[in-house]
């Protein structure tokens, strides 16, 4: 082995950069209906292949097919469509509001609306999500008031978080939505702890952890897997693989393995992939995983395969690192469009009603926005008090903070 050639560093590259023609031909997409639906007490070792396939329900013709197509009424589907449309309209307004200087920052969900909207409907009241910044659908679908979300985004006088947090870092225990952290990955293992606590307490509630593709590289991902696996915690471990982490494509986080879902195999955790742009598929898989957790069969790792169609945040310009038309070439389509076509296909919806609904939803969002703006926007109008910055660091303010508050003049 003395005359071996020099070693070289492998640095993974995405298929396509600005100027290139997007090409997803390597991306293997099983046809809708192709993946089996095992019983919820299946041995994780017996479904290893599911980590390399994709559960899909809606086919090209917008029909719901296969073993995962079941359970949702027309009414529920219409509701799902409405949730996704609300989220998209909400995002659009808030992006504009940010550009208008009404707040400092915003993060949108464009293209990923199905993931959080469908998932939300698969949990029971009392269950707890530990979301990242890109699951506001969990709130929208649970009827959390949009106006309150906007109050938070505007850091205005009615902001439930008193202006303390960056926009979109919502928190609502009552809606099963854990306080969002700006530090990636931390919540993934906290969700496992919450689930362990439920098991310790002989409760029936479960939790859901959320993480992005890029953030699976964080160490807390490992901590979550180790603890979930060891204590068989009643938790759903969601990876939202939207292909990008700011400017970094998923290959940098995923390394040499085929899929993120395969990470579960090293822990004996049931691991599946789902078409994240297919509302029906996400909902069905989430239901299945929730049932597993609730019946004591332990954690499920779900990789939601989707695409971040917009910029990472309002601070980001994706044209600097990916082809402008990559989103258009994304083979799993748009989640709203797909559900809409399905509803039309089954006779529950029409283009006209869709256009009407769009207008009506826009009005709802605008009304919420007006109401929120009446409470102020960032730095304009009434604002959370500086005094409030000192509150709530501890339940009871200790003397040194009282002194500091006084020194600050409040």
């Amino acid at each position, binding site marked *: 082995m003395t005359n071996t050639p020099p070693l070289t560093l492998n640095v993974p590259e995405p298929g396509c950069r600005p100027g290139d023609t997007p090409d997803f031909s390597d991306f293997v997409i099983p046809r809708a209906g192709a993946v089996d639906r095992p019983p919820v007490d299946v041995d994780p070792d017996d479904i290893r292949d599911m980590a390399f396939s994709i559960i899909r329900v809606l086919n090209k013709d917008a029909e719901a097919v296969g073993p995962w197509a079941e359970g949702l009424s027309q009414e529920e589907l219409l509701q799902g469509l409405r949730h996704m449309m609300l989220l998209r309209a909400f995002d659009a307004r808030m992006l504009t509001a940010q550009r208008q200087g009404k707040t400092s920052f915003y993060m949108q969900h464009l293209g990923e609306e199905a993931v959080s909207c469908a998932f939300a409907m698969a949990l029971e009241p009392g269950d*707890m999500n*530990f979301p990242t910044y890109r699951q506001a659908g969990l709130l929208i679908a649970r009827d959390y008031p949009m106006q309150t979300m906007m109050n938070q985004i505007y850091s205005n006088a009615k902001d*439930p*978080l*008193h202006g*303390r*947090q960056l926009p979109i*870092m919502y*928190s*609502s*225990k009552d809606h099963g939505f*854990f*306080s969002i*952290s700006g*530090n990636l990955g*931390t919540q993934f*293992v*906290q*969700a*496992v*702890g*919450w*689930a*362990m*606590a*439920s*098991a*310790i*307490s002989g409760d029936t509630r479960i*939790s859901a952890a959320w993480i992005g593709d890029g953030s699976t590289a964080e*160490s*807390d991902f*490992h*901590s*979550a897997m*180790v*603890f979930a696996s*060891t204590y068989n915690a009643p938790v759903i471990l969601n990876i939202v693989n939207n292909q990008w982490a700011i400017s970094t494509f998923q290959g940098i986080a995923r390394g040499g393995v085929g899929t993120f879902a395969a990470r579960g195999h090293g822990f004996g955790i049931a691991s599946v992939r789902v078409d994240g742009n297919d509302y029906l598929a996400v909902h069905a898989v989430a239901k299945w995983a929730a049932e597993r957790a609730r019946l004591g069969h332990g954690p499920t790792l779900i990789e939601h395969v989707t695409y971040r169609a917009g910029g990472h945040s309002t601070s980001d310009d994706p044209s600097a690192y990916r082809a402008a038309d990559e989103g258009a070439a994304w083979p799993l389509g748009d989640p709203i469009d797909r559900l809409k076509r399905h509803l039309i296909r089954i006779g529950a919806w029409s283009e006209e009603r869709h256009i009407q609904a769009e207008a009506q939803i826009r009005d709802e969002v605008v009304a919420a926005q007006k109401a929120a703006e009446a409470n102020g926007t960032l730095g304009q109008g009434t604002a959370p008090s500086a005094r409030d910055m000192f509150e*709530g*660091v*501890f*339940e009871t303010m*200790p*003397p*040194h903070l009282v002194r500091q508050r006084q020194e600050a003049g409040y």
Partner: protein
Amino acid sequence: MVQMTMIEALRDAHDVAMANDDRVVVYGEDVGYFGGVFRVTAGLQKKYGKSRCFDAPINEAGIVGTAIGMAAYGLRPVIEIQFADYVYPGMDQIVSEAARLRHRSAGDFTCPLVIRMPTGGGIFGGQTHSQSPEAFFTHSSGLKTVVPSNPRDAKGLLLAAIADPDPVIFLEPKRLYNGPFDGHHDRPVTSWKKHPLGDVPEGNEIIPLGKARITREGKDVTVLAYGTMVYVAEAAAAETGIDAEIIDLRTLLPIDLDTIKASVEKTGRCVIVHEATKTSGFGAELSALVQENCFYSLEAPIIRVTGWDTPYPHAQEWDYFPGPVRVGAALKTVMER
């Protein structure tokens, strides 16, 4: 009252808290079946079952992270980091999450959590079984930091920490587990079993956080100390004959500024002692506080006697450890100025 070592007093606090409150759960590396490498949790698994006291994987971030989730759920986890030297992998969960959860969610979620860890040196543990990382915690808004120095305080303060609605870092000076070590490493240490502070009240008797204790009244100089250094300071005072007023801070944050102020205003002099590395150690904060609050009473510069700015060495342990000779010298210096 029962005569206990510090280990026994800590175990008793766990026992009382677990008996009184189902929400108290205890875990950490080797904490369950075996009862912890220092045996603090011995017997608890047997008594309260495996889902209230259990072994954890060796992952400090995961131990803290899951405990935050449990606390948010409504439990009251008490977790052990096997040595304070091993807390750094859990630092992000402590500093970015536990410390800020209440504030960032405006009280929607809270984090009543106790993180126990043996701290300090004097056991020939080398650089990874000897550290005193308290300054990292006192610099993180949202944490309380406690360092007991005897069995009675250990029990009462741990009960207070468990009852506290916010995260508490609970640092246990391991050199004090069995007796009041005063830095004279060549002499035998009295056992707590023969010491008045080893006399521990039974039941749920809490010692409130944020209150210092004057262990020796004096008029010449105020010594601010905590943990092992309380006994070193007492030895130094006895050996130099300097009439030092020794304050055992007990809680570093929130600090008991009133007690400190009253004492320094009386004595006009101040010596601060801790085992941690000097630069940016908690002594720096104490020094700043004293000079801000007692400037016009100070008759001499405040002196810090601390560990050096080096890793904690193995063979040179007693050169590193701020023992009674170094503290005594500081007392003399401060009196001569």
